């Protein structure tokens, strides 16, 4: 009677959620699929399965509606079963994933692949023109969404703030609020004792420049919460920190804060570095942008004034004078026209915007080799700043981006 037991189990799982007639249909379907006989259940089995009996033609009938009482025992058993099924499903998915990964590695010919490489190869193997990235083919490790039992063995929720729907968040908030209350009570006590202020030493030890932890780290601690909730947490924490006697709970509060190492020197600005060539020439590299154009420039400090763009001499690449004047202006401002060599690469866009992109990159390159005054001159000439305007799109129902059709009443 293995089949019957299976069915009974199936029904046992279902009966909580679905009406009985539907259960019977499910059993019928199940039997048809598996090719097994329809169950002839004993009375006890009927009771256990939720009251399903077949008639003499073998059709399932909903006769005695002896529903088992919803007991805690059942609930726990169900949960265990659910967990088991979940794990089995995950193991299956994982096995499939590993198999597919092996195939993919064989196709590409690599023994080990990073996720980045894997994504790239997938992009090549299954090219997709779909707009939404989520809709394109992807290859990802199956993700096991954890099922956590929120109920204790005695049937009550395991967390005392279960019904707030964000128990871990409110636990933290509640704890901080209690500490705040304690600190305030302590202050009142001290005032009643005749001490209006804590000693300056104690206060000073608190001035450590800590900040509340970031949203990401807070979410790791308390599950997924909204920014609104995070802000509320920050406000509460700041209010607690500001209290004069907050140092009594310093170590406890500090678990929600982060600290910066003030002694560490600040990060370097994005300035190009000075490199040295094989021939011993000094040079710097920088990038520039304008519209869609991108440019990378290599500036050699000691040279004869040669400028090449994409391997060609500048005059050949930019036949129009306006582009050349534009390109050379940073060198002219710093008076390095004849003493430097420039190697530029530019892609995309038109000639005017390419020249502009090279100009920005060139003035960035120059910053390393010129004095502070000259750098300021370059800045005042507007040669560092990127023109961030881009082509505005055409709108439907209009002639161009802003231009409209001529208006007619009728």
């Amino acid at each position, binding site marked *: 009677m293995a089949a019957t037991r299976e069915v009974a189990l199936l029904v046992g799982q279902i009966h909580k959620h679905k009406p009985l007639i539907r259960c019977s249909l499910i059993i019928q379907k199940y039997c048809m699929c598996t090719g097994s006989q329809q169950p002839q259940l004993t009375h006890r089995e009927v009771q256990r399965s939720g009251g399903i009996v077949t008639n003499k033609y073998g059709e399932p009938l909903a006769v005695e509606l002896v529903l088992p009482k919803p007991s805690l025992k059942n609930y726990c058993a169900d949960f265990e079963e659910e967990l088991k099924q979940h794990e089995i499903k995950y193991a299956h998915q994982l096995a499939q994933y590993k198999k597919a990964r092996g195939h993919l590695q064989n196709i590409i010919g690599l023994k080990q692949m990073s996720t980045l490489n894997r994504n790239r190869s997938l992009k090549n193997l299954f090219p997709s023109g779909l707009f939404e990235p989520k809709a394109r083919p992807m290859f990802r490790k199956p993700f096991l969404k954890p099922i956590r039992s929120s109920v204790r063995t005695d049937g009550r929720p395991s967390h005392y703030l279960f019904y707030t729907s964000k128990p871990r968040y409110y636990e933290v908030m509640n704890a901080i609020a209690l500490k705040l209350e304690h600190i305030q009570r302590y202050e009142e006590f001290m005032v009643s004792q005749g001490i209006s202020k804590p000693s300056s030493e104690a206060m000073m030890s608190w001035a450590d420049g800590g900040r509340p932890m970031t949203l990401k780290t807070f979410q790791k601690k308390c599950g997924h919460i909204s920014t609104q909730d995070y802000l509320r947490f920050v406000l509460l924490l700041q209010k607690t920190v500001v209290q004069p006697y907050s140092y009594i709970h310093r170590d406890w509060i500090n678990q929600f804060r982060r600290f910066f190492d003030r002694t560490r020197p600040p990060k370097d600005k994005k300035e190009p570095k000075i490199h040295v060539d094989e021939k011993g020439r000094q040079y710097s590299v920088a990038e520039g942008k304008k519209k869609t154009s991108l440019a990378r420039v290599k500036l050699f400090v000691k040279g004869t004034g040669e400028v090449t763009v994409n391997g060609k001499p500048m005059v050949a690449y930019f036949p129009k004078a306006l582009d050349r*004047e534009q390109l*050379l202006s940073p060198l*002219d401002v710093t008076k390095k026209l004849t003493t430097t060599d420039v190697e530029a690469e530019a892609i995309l866009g038109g000639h005017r915007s390419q*020249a502009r992109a090279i100009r920005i990159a060139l003035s960035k390159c120059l910053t390393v080799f010129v004095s502070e005054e000259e750098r*300021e001159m370059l*800045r005042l000439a507007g040669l560092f700043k990127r023109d961030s305007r881009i082509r505005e799109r055409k709108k439907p129902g209009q002639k161009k981006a802003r231009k409209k059709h001529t208006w007619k009443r009728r």
Partner: protein
Amino acid sequence: MAAIRSLSHLLRQGLHLNAATLIPKTAPICQTRCMAQKGMTKPHPTLDLDALETTVTDMQSGKYKRKTVRYAESDQSTVLTHDQIVRKFIVLIMKGGNKDTARRIMDKTMEEIKRRQVREFHRATESQKLQIITDPRKIFNQAVNNLKPVLLVTSVKRGGIAYQVPVPCPEKRQLFEAMKIIKAALAEKTNSRIPFHEKLATIIMDAAEFKGKAMDRKIEILKNCERNRAYAHFK
């Protein structure tokens, strides 16, 4: 309206008074415009090398005050022949975004003016030579300054009738109007076929000496203002 009362006086004086002397100081000279574009509120940078070098001396003496600037435009450069007002005019005569052609025409015009002036310079006697300006950009600036109209007429509707009301022209618009006058003078048809740059050169050189077609147009504008003096109290 002090500006309008003194108009006839102005006409007698020779039409080249600065607008700042006429427009009362309380009146808004130009309105600030709000552009829906990024970084447009900041001032334009200068690529004039002399002006830039003053900042170096200022920094060394400690006078320097840091200020933010906009990005340099693509037609701004450190070339010696660069001139902001000429650059503006190039944009105005440009057609279909073809700035290169417009610039070439303007360069030819400047060359033409230079040639004529130098020829005159060599013909002149020693005493006259000092007075002749051979820098074409200076002549162009002078011509534009001479053509700046102090007054303009705008149509104002009162009781279903559109009146032509003379109003003082803002300083920023004067430059544009002056250039528009040159453009209109250029569009006039002539019997003989003269190249564009030669025609433009003659107009500019004439305007620098308070004569020619362009100057006639300017006087016409001012006379129109004088004619509609009665409606000056509108607006």
